[in-house]
C-alpha cells in the first residue's frame, strides 16, 4: 500500500506570524515553571500536530484543556487499518475514523489516506470519502481490501461516491482495490495531475473511455496489475500526459487481449512491465524521451 507523504511538498504556506512577540515581555526565567510548551502559539503547536501520525495528533486532545481542540484543524488525515489483530479492533477503528471526521472543523483537507477492508461497511467508507472530497482534499489515497483476497468478486463491485469523480480540488489520486470498479456517467477531474490505479477490475470499454476522457490536465498515469478481461479496447489521449506506466498482472498465462491506443502528444516517459497480455499501439509520440520495457513473467517488477 503506497503511503502518500506529501505533507511537506504541498502548498506549504504555513503562515506562522511571529505571535511569540506577544510573549516578548514574558520573562523566560521559567526554571520554576516546568511547562515548556505553553509559551508557543497555537499555530506552532498545530504545525507539530501536522507532522504526527493522525492517531498521535488526536491523542494530544487528552494532554490538557488547551490541547483538547487543537488537532481539529490538521490538514492531513491518515487512517490505516493494519496489524495482526485488525479484525478484533475493527469496531474501534471504524468508530475512530467516524469521530475524527465528525469532530474535525470545516477547514480544507490537504491529504486523506484510507487503507482498510471493506467488509460490510461500504456505505460508511463511501461517506468518509465524500467527506474528504467535500473538504476539497488535494491528495487522496484509498486502499480497499476484501476478506477473501479474491480478485473475481464481481458480485461486489466497488461504487465510489459520485462527487469524487467530479472533484475540482483533487490533484493526486491513488486507488488500490481488488474489486470491480464502477465509474459514473459523468467524470471530470479538472485538477488531477497524477492518477495511479492498482489491482482494479475494469468493467467495460465505455466506462474506461469516460475515465480517460475526464482527466484533461493529467500528467502521470499508472495502471498497475489491473484486470482488463472486460475491456476490448481503450484510448488514452490525455493531452498533457507526460509519464505513462503500465504493469501487467502476472497471475495467469491467459491473454487479456485488450487493445491500448495511446496518443502520446506530450508523452516523455513510458514504463512497461509484463508479458504482453494486451496490445499497445502508440500514436504521435514524437516527444518520447525514455521508454523502459521489461518483458517477463516474474511477480515482482
Amino acid at each position, binding site marked *: 500500500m503506497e503511503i502518500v507523504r506529501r505533507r511537506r511538498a504541498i502548498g506549504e504556506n504555513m503562515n506562522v506570524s511571529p505571535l511569540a512577540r506577544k510573549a516578548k515581555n514574558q520573562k523566560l526565567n521559567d526554571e520554576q515553571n516546568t511547562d*515548556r510548551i505553553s*509559551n508557543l502559539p497555537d499555530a506552532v503547536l498545530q504545525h507539530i500536530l501536522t507532522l504526527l*501520525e*493522525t492517531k498521535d495528533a488526536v491523542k494530544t486532545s487528552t494532554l490538557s*484543556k488547551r490541547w483538547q481542540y487543537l488537532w481539529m484543524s490538521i490538514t492531513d488525515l491518515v487512517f490505516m487499518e493494519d496489524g495482526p489483530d485488525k479484525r478484533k479492533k475493527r469496531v474501534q477503528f471504524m468508530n475512530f475514523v467516524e469521530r475524527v471526521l465528525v469532530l474535525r472543523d470545516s477547514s480544507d483537507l490537504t491529504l486523506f489516506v484510507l487503507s482498510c477492508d471493506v467488509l460490510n461497511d461500504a456505505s460508511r467508507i463511501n461517506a468518509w470519502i465524500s467527506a474528504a472530497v467535500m473538504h476539497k482534499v488535494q491528495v487522496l489515497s484509498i486502499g480497499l481490501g476484501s476478506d477473501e483476497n479474491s480478485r473475481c468478486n464481481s458480485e461486489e463491485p466497488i461504487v465510489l461516491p459520485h462527487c469524487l469523480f467530479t472533484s475540482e480540488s483533487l490533484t493526486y489520486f491513488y486507488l488500490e482495490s481488488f474489486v470491480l470498479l464502477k465509474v459514473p456517467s459523468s467524470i471530470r477531474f479538472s485538477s488531477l495531475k497524477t492518477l495511479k490505479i492498482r489491482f482494479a477490475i475494469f468493467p467495460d470499454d465505455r466506462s474506461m473511455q469516460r475515465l480517460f476522457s475526464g482527466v484533461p490536465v493529467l500528467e502521470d498515469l499508472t495502471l498497475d496489475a489491473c484486470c482488463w478481461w472486460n475491456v476490448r479496447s481503450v484510448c488514452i489521449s490525455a493531452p498533457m500526459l507526460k509519464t505513462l506506466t503500465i504493469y501487467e498482472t502476472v497471475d495467469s498465462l491467459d491473454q487479456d487481449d485488450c487493445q491500448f491506443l495511446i496518443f502520446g502528444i506530450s508523452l516523455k516517459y513510458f514504463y512497461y512491465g509484463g508479458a504482453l497480455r494486451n496490445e499497445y499501439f502508440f500514436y504521435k509520440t514524437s516527444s518520447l524521451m525514455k521508454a523502459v520495457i521489461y518483458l517477463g513473467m516474474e511477480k515482482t517488477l
Partner: protein
Amino acid sequence: MKFCTVKQYFDDENNNNVTNGIATTVIPLPNKHLKIKANNKEMEQYEQELLRNVMPQELTKLILAANYLNFKEALDFFCRTVANAIQNKSVDYVRKFFGLESDFEPGEEEKLCKEFAWSFEGVDED
C-alpha cells in the same frame, strides 16, 4: 529573505525570547543552509550533530526562538524533531516531555480516551 526579524532581535534591548544560548544555535543555521543548500544529506548530518548537544527540554525554547525570528526552515526542523520524539508515545510520556499537567475534570479525560480508543492502542513503552 530568511531573517526578517534579526534586525529586530538586535534592536530589542529587552529581548527575553531569544536567550544567548539559543541564538548561537539558531542564527548560524541559514549560513550553513546556504553553503550546503544542494546537499540534503550533509544538512541532515549537521542537524543531527546539532541536536546531540541539545536537551529535549531545550527544543521548545529553540522553537520559540525560530518562530520569533521568522526562520521557517529551523522552525520546521525543530518541530519535526519534537514530533519524532513524541511519536507513538503514551499520553503520560508526552505530558512529562512538555512539562504539562492535566487540567481536566475527573472523568473528562476518560471520556476522551474512550471516544478515541483506537488511537491509544499499541503505543511504545515509556
